[in-house]
């Protein structure tokens, strides 16, 4: 709760709304005790007095009544009615929505049919019909406004409830012996309430407008009682001769509704967890580069080299050092594997190459990425764009999420080509079919017109590979391309990639967490831990005789097929979080060979003959053999 208030207070606009709203509500509450004239006493002799004229601060209306006093009483009434309508609609609507969403099936069907029926009316028709039936009056207007808003709440809350009712913790609650009523009250409701509050806070303003509207039409509050809407309605006939009687209540409505909307947005932002994590930020076309970045010299030959690459995520006041100084190089025709667990920085390293790290919050703070000698970090957007897909292409993990769901796969392939050179419709289609054939998709001619959802996971990933090949790039970066796939499909995709590399002389950077995959596909491997490379070398050498204790123990963790039932070697503890990395070796706390000097200073990546390790006490050959 206090965290919520803190977040709300941080939002200056919402704070402004809160203050204005606080003042208006306070004045409305105090109205009966303030020294105001009676709002309903008419004095036709003093009609239409302008503001500040002596007859009341805001002048008088067409019957000579004190405008200030009427404004205060009207505000009081409008606020009360608006809040009451919102509360009523939210409570009933949410109850209906939760029941429909949780029980599903027939209950849901019947309720939602009814809701759809009500939503088939433009809402004011329903409100007008209700007022027509019940007769004009403020109470009836309140009922009408609440009633027409119930379906909106019901539908919204139902959607949220369906999502929550299918979560695993609801299943777990059932297995814990909870009844449905208890599940609704203790499992569903606490998760739905923030949504109800958001929906309410963003609709109160609307409700106030609506009740004011009905009163404006003469269907709400009846004379002499007046809310802001009916004040405006009564003033309309004198709009041209005495505009101030219209402007006063109109501006009041505007101020109230605007303050509520500002506050409502603030509440929504404070309650929405995605905003806290910055997940609703728009990623920029290219990753930001820190102004004080220092380019690093090329440390090794290669078509693509990363030198001293550092990428960070700045979330609020925390700095996550996702990539903490990576040196890597890949030669034409070579397959380089980068292996690591989640959070090791392997994907961020790969995405940093072409500036595809989501930014904000991503930021490249140091180092260089060179393609044939040109530094891509900090290069102008157009340079970077023209290299993307043409020089260095990507294959991503989940092919269902990475292909555009609304375009045919053929069109997506043609677009990849058209991004770099002019290509006609027919030629593009021919090329697309060729690409699909190159990745061994059967019936390429008809598959080219498929949408991604019409294909299986394996076929979609082939399309992803075809797209990467579209412009004959020199380097392909594959970021866990088989992780979402079944093992039999994975085998097909891996052998396809291997063939393509040999046929076309492609350099491949392959990101994975699977030693088996690295062992089969890659010439060289780099092991990452907590944002740094801890070991690098020829794949067989590293896998057969790991030198870094982390590599050695990680390999030992993974069961290998064909060894039967057995106990596994676990690594105790967890990897460090990259916003508070310890000094020295990041693995020290989990390492059984740790010495005092492992926790001091910078430990370099040392070695010779292509074999490098970042460890003061590496595992030697004899130990590895044991």
């Amino acid at each position, binding site marked *: 709760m206090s965290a919520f208030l803190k977040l709300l207070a941080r939002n200056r606009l919402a704070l402004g709304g809160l203050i204005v709203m606080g003042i208006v509500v306070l004045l409305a509450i105090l109205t009966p005790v303030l020294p105001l004239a009676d709002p309903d006493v008419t004095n036709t002799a003093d009609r239409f007095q302008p503001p500040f004229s002596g007859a009341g601060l805001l002048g008088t209306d067409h019957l000579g009544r004190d405008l200030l006093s009427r404004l205060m009483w009207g505000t009081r009434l409008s606020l009360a009615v608006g809040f009451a309508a919102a509360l009523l609609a939210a409570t009933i609507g949410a109850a209906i929505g939760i029941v429909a969403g949780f029980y599903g099936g027939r209950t849901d069907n019947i309720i939602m049919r009814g809701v759809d029926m009500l939503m088939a009316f433009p809402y004011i028709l329903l409100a007008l019909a209700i007022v027509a039936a019940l007769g004009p009056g403020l109470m009836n207007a309140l009922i009408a406004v609440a009633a027409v808003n119930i379906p909106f709440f019901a539908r919204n809350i139902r959607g949220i409830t369906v999502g929550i009712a299918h*979560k*695993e*913790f609801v*299943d*777990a*609650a*059932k*297995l*814990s*012996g*909870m*009844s449905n009523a208890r599940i609704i009250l*203790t*499992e569903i409701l*606490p*998760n739905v309430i923030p949504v109800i509050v958001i929906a309410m806070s963003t609709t109160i303003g609307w409700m106030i407008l609506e009740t004011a509207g009905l009163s404006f039409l003469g269907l709400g509050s009846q004379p002499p009682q007046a809310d802001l809407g009916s004040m405006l309605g009564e003033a309309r006939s004198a709009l041209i001769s005495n505009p101030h009687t219209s402007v006063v209540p109109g501006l009041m409505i505007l101020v109230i509704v605007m303050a509520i909307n500002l506050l409502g947005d603030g509440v929504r932002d404070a309650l929405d967890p995605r905003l806290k994590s910055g997940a609703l930020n728009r990623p920029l076309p290219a990753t930001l580069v820190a102004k004080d970045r220092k380019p690093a010299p090329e440390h090794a030959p290669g078509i693509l080299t990363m030198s001293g690459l550092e990428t960070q995520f700045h979330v609020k006041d925390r700095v996550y050092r996702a990539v903490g100084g990576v040196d890597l190089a890949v030669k034409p025709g070579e397959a380089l594997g980068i292996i690591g*667990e*989640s959070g090791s920085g392997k994907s961020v390293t790969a995405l940093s190459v072409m500036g595809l790290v989501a930014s904000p919050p991503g930021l490249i703070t140091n180092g260089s990425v060179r393609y044939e000698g040109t530094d891509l970090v900090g290069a102008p957007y157009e340079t970077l764009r023209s290299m993307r897909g043409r020089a260095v292409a990507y294959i991503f993990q989940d092919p269902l999420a990475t292909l555009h769901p609304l375009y045919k796969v053929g069109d997506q392939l043609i677009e990849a080509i058209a991004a770099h050179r002019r290509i006609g419709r027919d030629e593009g289609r021919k090329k697309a079919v060729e690409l699909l054939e190159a990745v*061994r*998709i059967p019936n390429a001619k008809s598959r080219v017109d498929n949408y991604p959802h019409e294909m*299986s996971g*394996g*076929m979609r990933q082939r399309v992803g590979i075809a797209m990467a090949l579209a412009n004959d790039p020199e380097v392909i970066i594959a970021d866990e391309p088989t992780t979402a796939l*079944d*093992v*039999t499909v*994975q*085998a*097909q995709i*891996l*052998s396809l990639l291997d063939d393509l590399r040999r046929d076309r002389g492609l350099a491949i950077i392959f990101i994975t*967490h*699977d030693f*088996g*995959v*690295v*062992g*089969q596909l890659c010439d060289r491997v780099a092991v990452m831990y907590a944002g740094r490379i801890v070991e690098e070398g020829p794949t*067989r050498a590293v*896998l057969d005789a790991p030198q870094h204790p982390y590599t050695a*123990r*990680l390999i030992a*963790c*993974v*069961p*290998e*097929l*064909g*060894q*039967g*039932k*057995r*106990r*596994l*070697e*676990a*690594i*105790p503890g*967890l*990897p460090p979080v990259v916003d508070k990395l310890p000094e020295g070796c990041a693995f020290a706390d989990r390492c059984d060979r740790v010495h005092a000097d492992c926790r001091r200073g910078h430990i370099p990546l040392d070695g010779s003959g292509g074999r490098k390790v970042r460890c003061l006490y590496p595992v030697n050959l004899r130990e590895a053999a044991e």
Partner: protein
Amino acid sequence: MTAALRVTDLSKTFEMKGGLFGKDKPGVRAVHPLTLEIQEGETLGIVGESGCGKSTLARMLVGLLPPSTGTIEIDGAALDNADPAVFGKRIQYVFQDPISSLNPRKTIRQIMEAPLKLLHGMDQKQRAERIAEIFATVSLREEFLERYPHEFSGGQAQRIGIARALAAEARILILDEPVSALDVSVQAQVLNLLADLKARLGLTYLFISHDLAVVEAVSDRIAVLYFGAVVELGRAEDVFRAPRHPYTKLLADSAPVVGRDLTAPEGRETELPDPLNPPPGCAFAARCPRAQARCREEVPGLGEFADGGHMAACFFPLEEGA
């Protein structure tokens, strides 16, 4: 020895709703009638690729999904009540995604107390003692009890999920991909914990996974599922070493193994059969290098090949060591 869990002819068909004026279409058969026994203290591994029906099977076993046909017996007594609370005391479930199986708005203590209060009617003092005992068993610190799920890593959350399953005091645990959301270094910790618990508390496990090596490492026996049916069943050390069903062999050959050359074990590009329009014979026939006419007409039963406890649903099973 009595079977801790016996399922007989258990199957699930999902009805397909026709339109407002359309006729109901024939359903999708997610699990074909299946008969299995798990002995007390045994770990039965179930392995299969996505869409093979392994999660549907698991949800039926714990009562979260009513089966279309068949019966479930625990210690010889039939569970015919579809109430998960009745199931809860006999058989429990450990979920794949440890974080989403914990209600984000409840403390760990509230989550742990639910089964103790509702299934066993314990009072507050008993509950506190029992929770302390369970937490000690799964080596979790008691200070975690006042925290909320989002404060935990995947491995810790999965320990909490296991602790909750233990609280129900069920003798049988269904472990549905319990480590597939975890990193390998943490995965080994959780697998070892599960092995310790089983030895100490005499539990029976049904371990579901898509990872062949993990299943092999933890199971006594393994059942291979393909397209909703068991195609091979045998001792863990035999199934992948000497597969009898061609599909099992394909799985074993596809698993990436360091040092083995990269070749696609299947020459052709193949896909799973369409569940809305299943083939008349063996579901694997279209992908099978050994398929003959009979395979495309008749569905082989699991008893087609039997060698001791090793069974395979294949008319033309592979030879030992083939």
